């Protein structure tokens, strides 16, 4: 019973995370993960300008970039 519930909840979570990925709802989380992996250095304290973008700034940047070119078709 418990296991069945866990399975259903797991499937629900997977579904929800795939919806978020497909729609770009989790773009900021993915950006943070990417940033930590590639730019965070060796864990030394960071200067302010080296910190990742905030959520609002990231979203602004992202939209500007996304529409800079042919994005929609007939």
């Amino acid at each position, binding site marked *: 019973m418990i296991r069945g519930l866990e399975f259903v909840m797991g499937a629900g979570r997977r579904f929800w995370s795939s919806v978020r990925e497909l729609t770009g709802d989790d773009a900021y989380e993915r950006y943070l993960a990417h940033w930590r992996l590639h730019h965070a250095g060796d864990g030394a304290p960071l200067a302010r300008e080296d910190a990742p973008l905030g959520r609002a700034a990231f*979203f602004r940047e992202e939209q*500007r970039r996304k529409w800079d070119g042919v994005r*929609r078709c007939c």
Partner: protein
Amino acid sequence: MATTAAPRPLRPLSLAIWSIVVAVGTFALGAIALSRGESINALWFIVAAICIYAIGYRFYSAFLAAKVLALDSTRATPAERFNDGRDFMPTNRWVVFGHHFAAIAGPGPLIGPTLAAQFGYLPGTLWILIGAVLGGCVQDFVALFCSIRRDGRSLGQMARDELGPIGGAVALIGVMAIMIILIAVLGLVVVNAMRNSPWATSTVAATIPIALLVGLYMRHVRPGRVLEGTAIGVALLLFAVLGGGWIDDHATFGPWFDFGAPALAIMIIVYGFAAAVLPVWLLLAPRDYLSTFMKIGTIAALAVAIVILNPEVKMPAVTQFIDGTGPIFGGNVFPFVFITIACGAISGFHSLIASGTTPKLLANERDARFIGYGGMAMESFVAIMAMVAACVLDPGVYFAINSPAGVVGAGAADAVATISSWGYPVTVEQMSALAAEMGEETLFARTGGAPSLAVGMASIFSSAFGEGLLDVWYHFAIMFEALFILTTLDAGTRVARFMLQDMLGNVVPAMGRTSWYPSVLLCSGLVVAAWGYFLYFGTIDPLGGINSLWPLFGIANQMLAAIALCVATTVLVKSGKVRFVWVTALPLAWLVTITTTAAWQKLFSPDVRVGFLSHANDLAAQLASGSLTGAAAEQAPRLIFNDRLDAALTMFFLVTVWVIVIETARICHASLTGRRCPPSAESAHIPSRLVEDWVRD
């Protein structure tokens, strides 16, 4: 180090399954093709289409992947090599598929088949299926492949690299021209759907403040919460559809939204300019989220409804209009069915997307098959559903909605008499009752395909999901079409503006700065003026505008496909795949044949409903003899000028295609005989580091 795309021999079980798919597909296609007289069930279309796409995908695209393109899953893609977490980023294949499909699926595959249904369901359906499997899907797949192997370069850049500067310049100007014509014709479709309809006009108008609201929400209230913002927006849109019904009935508010076509055209032009100079986050980006959700949701619902309902197709397989006398647009079934279907079978525009964002996201080269070939198969399926939605209408009703007043007569009685005399009985009472059910004043001469598609969708939806809401479903369908037509209009204007700024930037460097406001205003103004001109005069043209603009759009779009296939053919020749060159060369030869024939007929046909020049001369003769009076005489000089302008554009497209074809032949010949030509721009093989630690499939 094996290429994972190498074909596996079929196991007995898959052999059995695929034999069944082939048998079912053949049977369904046979049922569609051979049915005469009796009406045929729409389910056959769905079954035939799915089987043909499945066979094409399983066998032909596997052959392309393994033998022709030799996809190599061990080769690092641009996403892996240039991974910057933004433009270039290895992404889950399903997510890339979703983005790619949302980008390529626009209003084209809905409108083209609706118009082409005037030839009967068979010519259009066959071309959608065959054209997609052997042409459109191949083009998208190969364009995507070429771009992946060239660091994600765009079609224009690839044309320049592989064909030299002439090819590159021609591709760039072609894209600009097609964008202008496309936007004008789409604007005309929306105008014809809103003409003298307060319900449609108010609902479409409401989409603008709703998009602004969602834009503000996603920017300032809850930044980046795409799903929340979209959910709010979709709820408001549905509310706007219902609210439109209330406004329609309202004695005071109703007339506020009641406009004729020329007035609406001017509003669209003003709106287009405003939308193009506003920041993207405020209007374009939020509306794009809304329209993508609406599009995917509505198309899925339509598929489900057709399967549940199994409506009967009432249109004959072939009508007498294959001889070129059709009321919706003039011209024989060859070449005009191929020009009219456009995006549902092969669309040059897709090669821009397939060489734009998509190649920068693929984690593995092997996914190009699923995304390029599979994405187009899906789009083609949308076109099949549009064909079904047009053909479930009574043919008399279909022709009454789609025929311009200039052809069948302006009065309701004249129109039904003409249409009935063709053998498609329809009565004034029937049309009035239908208009009343749909909550409209009249449905006569609502050309452009959107209203007849909406009537078809409304009747399918209301039968499948609840009777009695026909008017709400109708306006929902109109809103859904207008939503993404306006997105294309806005995005297209912006792209054309960037290109114009880029070109002018070569002369005056300051004009090239995309954020310099004087340049933004000037270039947006020029682009909007260009499409606005065609749009406005489309609304006062007695033949309805669609009649001349849609074929022009079709020719331009197929021309762009020919450019993409030229690049692909050159790439195949240069990479030593001459024996497989027919894969792109045959669709290319076919496209060049149909665009040349169509362009030639649009230029020089003596039939005034086909040839631009003969129509201009005919009008000029009528004007000279004084047989035109009143408004007709006033408009005639303008219409004559427009015909000649359309003829000049057609001539330009024709010359463009041939310049690029000859250039391709020259480069291929030079490459084969070892003469000097631009070398293949393929980037070096760098082994992927993702394959070993990535669990795939």
